């Protein structure tokens, strides 16, 4: 199967009912599930990410697209797990302790999945131990998200707690800056979901 243009457009335009309908149709037809994802849906998210980087799309459009993408993933996920395929690497992502904002984190997680990573989603309100456990179960990089100025300082504790573990730490979220990331000794930073993928690849020494 080549790219399903209708599906590609539906993800970009954030048309959730259309995405669900087309994905279901393809699945029913017996199309390879990895193909549906890799040829149409991920390229659509990547395209929206690129547009975002070029200032041709903004957060609302990206979230609307992500929501449609998620509807498709909900159908594909169980089927994909059954099919099993080789990921780029294993990463963990979570919102830090005291913070419950997860919309941005989920978007980053989706883009990472789209780029081919196996993503462990640790959820919200994560303390140092949660991240340590993730590293113990094989995460090569952990990504921390914080949306509150009151929870951002906790990132420093996590960076320190993970020193020597060998895992790379990347941080992000609206109040976080590059300077702050450098200051606390994080291995990477990005201010949007698209660059988050690039930064993760860079931190793990993978080709962009």
């Amino acid at each position, binding site marked *: 199967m080549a790219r399903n243009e209708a599906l590609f457009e539906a993800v970009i335009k*954030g048309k*959730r009912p259309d995405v669900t309908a087309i994905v279901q149709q393809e699945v029913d037809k017996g199309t390879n599930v990895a193909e549906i994802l890799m040829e149409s849906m991920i390229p659509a998210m990547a395209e929206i990410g690129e547009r975002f980087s*070029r*200032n041709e799309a*903004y*957060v*609302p*459009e990206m*979230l*609307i697209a*992500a*929501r449609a993408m998620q509807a498709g993933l909900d159908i594909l996920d169980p089927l994909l797990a059954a099919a099993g395929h080789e990921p780029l690497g294993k990463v963990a992502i979570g919102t830090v*302790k*005291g*913070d*419950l*904002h*997860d*919309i941005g984190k989920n978007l980053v997680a989706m883009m990472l999945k789209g780029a081919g990573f196996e993503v462990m989603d640790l959820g*919200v*309100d994560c303390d140092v131990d949660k991240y340590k456990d993730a590293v113990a179960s094989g995460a090569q990089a952990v990504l921390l998200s914080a949306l*509150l*100025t*009151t*929870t951002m300082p906790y990132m420093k504790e996590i960076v320190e707690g993970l020193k020597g573990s060998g895992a790379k730490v990347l941080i992000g979220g609206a*109040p*976080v*800056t590059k*300077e*702050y990331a450098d*200051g606390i000794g994080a291995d990477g930073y990005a201010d949007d979901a698209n660059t988050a993928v690039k930064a993760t690849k860079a931190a793990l020494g993978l080709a962009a």
Partner: protein
Amino acid sequence: MAVIINFEGRSVAVESGSDRSVLDLAREAGWHIDAKCGGKGFCASCNVLLGAGHYRVFAEEIEVLPEQRREVLACQTVVLSETAEIFIPRSSVIALDGARIADEMEIPEHTLNPRFGEGFGIAVDVGTTTVVAALVDLSTGKVVSRESLYNQQILKADDVVSRISLCDDDANLKILQELVIEHTLNPLIQKLCAGTGTDKEQIVQLAVSGNTVMMHIFFGVSPVSIGVIPFKPVSLTFESIAVALGIDVKPDAVIAAVPAISGYVGGDITSDIFVSNLWNQNGLTVLIDIGTNGEMVACHAGQMTACATAAGPAFEGAGLLHGARAASRAIDTINYDETLQFELTVIGEPYPMGLCGSAIIDFIACGFRCGLINAYGRYDVEMLKAQDCHETVCGMHACILVDTEQSATGETITVTEHDIAEILKAKAAIYAGLKTLLAELGKTVQEIDCIILAGGFAKHINLENAVTIGLLPDIGIEKYKVIGNGSLAGAALALLDQGTGQAYLDIIDKPKVITLNQTAHFTNYFQEALALPNLDESDFPNILSNH
């Protein structure tokens, strides 16, 4: 060491001490640089230009040569050389004059039964941005005079959470308390007394109403616990006497706060509930305070649920390229059609320097109606170009509202697509909060019988436009009621009738407070509400049928 600070052609020399930021130096020179994030280095509202000198910016030392200019964040820059020169752009300075402050209030019918039968009382609404005070004659029950000022805490940080972050250390808590009492309330009292020939010693009682964080700081109690889960305040009620807080009235005057409902649903909302008589309304009634914290309370058959939606300060102009507070020189209304001939009104002066929240709502609503702006908040670029209104700002499409000659800054005033996206996020947070709140009651927006809008901002917005962009539900303008500053009215009532004290305490444990993150629907509603007016088209039948 002398540092020369320049602003609008004037220069002031200040001594630079060790480790004082350029932000502090500028303030000492008398200019109030905007520090929306509280000097933490991530909002870029405090941009300044460095002239010749040696500086440390973040961790890095830099040298600026004569004739060179370097743009930096004032809060993250320290002067290291003996002499230095700093230039402050106008866009980084807070204009403290000419604020449009909603001090109109309607005090509902009540019995005159004050705790003190003579002398004067002062009712105060302590807002995150503005503080309004009313002088009340306790023997006659009349409001004699009203005055307002920006809450001087805005010099330190914009939103409540940034202020909580500052309170990490006790010295800063003290500074914030001084800013609201010594530098805001006391000058207001001074003005009220001078204007009416009242002696300060005759002021025997103060009632204050405000959000929970403001009340903690006002009474000198650290609000840090409200900043992180589970957002528990130290106390819901506060009482003290004037001398203990440094308030310039009769030393033993009693100061009491209107009690709060939770960490993010404060005494200002308790006041609004009481003033609007919310729990006695028939049918389904919702009270909304459209502002940074976006608090709302829904009431049905005597049952109340409440939440705060964290819309952020975008409606106060924050985060928008040419955003401005609703003060002198801000555009406050806009009207246009597909010819893009913008009809504007400006507060106070003929030439504008930016646009405030009410204007940006108008701008987006008119744009959506005439096809300039699509459902995702994006411009029809061809249309902008055809009408000579197109500009590219930092790689973004922008619409020129005011050209260089008509603008007070000498630069064009524009609205970028990024600005529109910021407003979409803020309006989505409010609408999604409302929908979630109703879902908890098993209700939908269409079932609402009445919406009560409280707070200063609601008085100045065009309701039809607010509905068009999907900020407020499409239920017919006649179902909306605007009550003005209910927080101030609630404080005044506390002075006029001592019975209200008990009534407030009865109110605060009635609403069930909902944490939006823990609900199943919020995220979905938020994402739907990011579009104009909403992806759930059935919510906006009238808007879409006209479109």
